[in-house]
């Protein structure tokens, strides 16, 4: 052993080598580039292809966008400025169209003096919905939610304040009757509340609103639905469709999974028929066909008809998403609820739906994004959504022939909204995931 020791020691170094930096090509940016961009022949080809694609796409677009002219009131003015700045024939964007037609693109034909109302309505909506979206906000904010729809309708369409107030009173009345009769059985309470509120809306609400208006004429300038346009229209249709279709979708999903034969078949037929036919055709139905099916002489607002149609349409899609969530829930959960002696609605409300909805959040948000994007289809039945608004602007003498600037603006706004929604869904998914463990 000692021999071996002596031999090894003879070769041993008695000083530490100073730490050497890794080889040049194995460190820092060079290494990253080698590993991520040029690791093999296929990757080299792909990288070069991607770079070429980027260059081809951006070579003309970027200079065009950055040369863009913001301060101009017509295409011809744009051209004059461009010729002064860059010379004839140089391509330059004319962003001036967005600056000068900003109001139409965002608000449509909403009266200029009332432009504060749509944003305020949006803020009210967000305030009402925030405590639902973010669970760490104080729960007391939830009390805003029931009042919000009335406030939003009043802000958007205007008119005397007493109309929405009188309508809201019907719900208060129903709630009071429900509470008073609750001890006599759920069904009695439900029927009582239904009858009282329907009678109130049918006979009392209108005279009451009229009387209150004559006593205290408080109100906003009424705005016609035809004046809604641009992104205001998209957001009004989108958000009302979203908030109305969710409860309807939940009910449809429950009905489809119900053990009652007739109920589940009705739900199946409804869902499949709605999903089998494109939204455009349904919008066509709302535009030209709905009047055939309503009592003679009824002719209500096209915007309202579109909102109803969009809601009915989205509900079918959301029902399918939620059905997936309900199916993914382990059977034990249903059985445990039964074992605890919970009734159907109690089991659904306390045990099944909270979990099923949690599972289906990504799908629900995807349907919402789809619904919001689909609001552009109303341009085909001649409502002035951003797409139609841009063609209208293009048809004016000042802005004839402006294509890309308007499309890019509309696309960018939609992208911001939809991207935000999808990020929110990812965030929510991760947060709920953690709370499981």
């Amino acid at each position: 052993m000692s021999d071996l020791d002596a031999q090894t020691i003879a070769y041993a170094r008695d000083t530490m080598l100073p730490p050497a930096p890794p080889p040049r090509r194995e460190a820092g940016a060079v290494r990253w580039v080698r590993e991520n961009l040029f690791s093999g022949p296929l990757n080299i080809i792909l990288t070069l292809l991607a770079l070429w694609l980027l260059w081809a796409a951006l070579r003309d677009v970027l200079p065009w966008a950055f040369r863009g002219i913001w301060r101009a009131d017509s295409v011809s003015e744009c051209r004059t400025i461009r010729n002064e700045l860059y010379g004839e024939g140089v391509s330059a964007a004319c962003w001036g169209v967005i600056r000068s037609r900003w109001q139409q693109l965002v608000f449509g034909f909403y009266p200029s003096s009332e432009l504060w109302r749509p944003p305020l309505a949006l803020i009210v909506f967000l305030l009402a919905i925030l405590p639902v979206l973010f669970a760490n906000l104080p729960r007391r904010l939830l009390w805003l939610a029931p009042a919000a729809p009335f406030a939003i309708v009043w802000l958007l369409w205007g008119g005397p304040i007493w109309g929405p107030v009188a309508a809201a009173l019907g719900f208060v009345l129903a709630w009071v009757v429900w509470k008073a009769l609750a001890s006599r059985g759920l069904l009695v309470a439900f029927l009582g509340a239904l009858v009282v509120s329907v009678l109130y809306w049918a006979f009392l609400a209108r005279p009451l609103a009229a009387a209150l208006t004559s006593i205290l004429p408080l109100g906003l300038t009424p705005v016609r639905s035809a004046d809604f346009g641009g992104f205001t229209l998209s957001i009004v249709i989108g958000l009302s469709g979203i908030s109305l279709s969710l409860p309807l979708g939940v009910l449809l999903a429950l009905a489809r999974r119900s053990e009652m034969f007739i109920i589940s078949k009705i739900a199946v037929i409804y869902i499949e028929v709605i999903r089998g036919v494109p939204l455009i055709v349904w919008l066509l139905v709302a535009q030209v066909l709905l009047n055939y099916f309503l009592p003679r002489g009824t002719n209500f607002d096209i915007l309202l008809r579109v909102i109803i149609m969009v809601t009915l349409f989205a509900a079918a899609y959301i029902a399918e998403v939620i059905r997936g969530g309900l199916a993914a829930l382990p059977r034990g959960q249903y059985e445990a609820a039964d074992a605890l002696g919970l009734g159907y609605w109690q089991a659904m409300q306390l045990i099944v739906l909270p979990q099923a909805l949690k599972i289906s959040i990504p799908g629900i948000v995807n349907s919402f994004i789809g619904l919001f994007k689909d609001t552009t289809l109303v341009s085909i039945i001649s409502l002035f959504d951003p797409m139609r608004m841009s063609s209208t602007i293009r048809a004016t003498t000042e802005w004839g022939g402006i294509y890309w600037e308007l499309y890019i603006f509309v696309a960018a706004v939609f992208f911001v909204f939809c991207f935000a929604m999808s990020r929110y869904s990812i965030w929510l998914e991760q947060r709920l995931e953690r709370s499981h463990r």
Partner: protein
Amino acid sequence: MTIAAEPPRRAFRPGQLLYDTRYRGITIQVVALILLVALIAFLVRNLVVNLHALGKDFDFGFLGNRAGYDIGQTLIPYTNNDSHARAALVGILNTLLVAGLGCVTATVLGVLAGVLRLSKNWIVSRLMTVYVEAFRNVPLLLWIVLVYAVLSEATPAPTAFRGEDAEASKLFGLIAFTNRGTYIPSLVWGEGASTLGVVLVLSILAALVWRAFARRRQEATGQPLPVLWVSLALLVLPFALTFLLLGAPLTLDVPTIRETGIARFNGGINVLNSLVALWIALALYTGAFIAEIVRGGILAVSRGQSEAAFALGLRPGRTMRLVILPQALRVIIPPLISQYLNLTKNSSLAVAVGYADVRATLGGVTMNQTGRELESILLLGLFYLVVSLIISGVMNIYNRRIALKER
């Protein structure tokens, strides 16, 4: 003396219909049915009253009348003297054409983008992320109009193809992209072309038989036979031989520009820009969704599977083909079906660029000309419903076959 008494048999009381869970279900269903029937009766009554008041009836006879309008792009012969029914058929075929083209292209794009998004190559995966997010978050209608604008604004006019040193040139000398539509070569069937078709069908059959034989032999003996090369040879060689023997019976009619007079292309097929725009936009849009589905499907296969395949000595290509893809497909197929359905339904946006699909003929011009809104929309809805049900039915059968292989 028995302690256990018979359960009390009380007479049926009406209250049980509400409070006894044995009967409540029936009550609810009966009430729902009554409400539904009442609703339908209400709607139908209104319909009858309204139609009567407007002096209209419910009659599909208008389909036989002369349509009287022209359609730019038709797959079957059609003139404005044909009936509304034929115009509707032209529209239906146009819808199916763009849907079929779109589905194939979208699948290719989507699989490519989905796989590349998982690539280790940073630039490529970022580029694919940008593509997917851009198309998923911007309305389809906008993409269709945008692609249409690109096609009609950024492509040369037919005059640019004139002369010896023309400004614009045809792609591969065959395809001309102009702002008046894309001109593609057409196939001309010469003498004996049908023999060629027979030969092609026979070689396809032979390739399939060879494939089945090779598989059976591999299962029996473990000896693999070359499938790809033999199939390719079976497909190409007989076809090429007959082609040469018969003296080239199949020729391409390449579009050529007229050098004088109105700038038009002679020969070939003119594919309207509306069709191309719709096709490209639908394919790119749906491709972005399919990319996400493919990515999710591949990620759903656990890492251990590919590691096990590598441990068995399979090369990456075979690992993908034999291990990962079959398992990923099970996750991918169901949402893929619904994407195909979505694409078919989205093709109704054709109206934005003036492509004559069924929505534009039956649900557009025909409806406006005849004033038969009810009948037209009913037929239109029925068509889409039938297509949806057929696609989802076929795909469900396929899906069941794939799913059966599960334990």
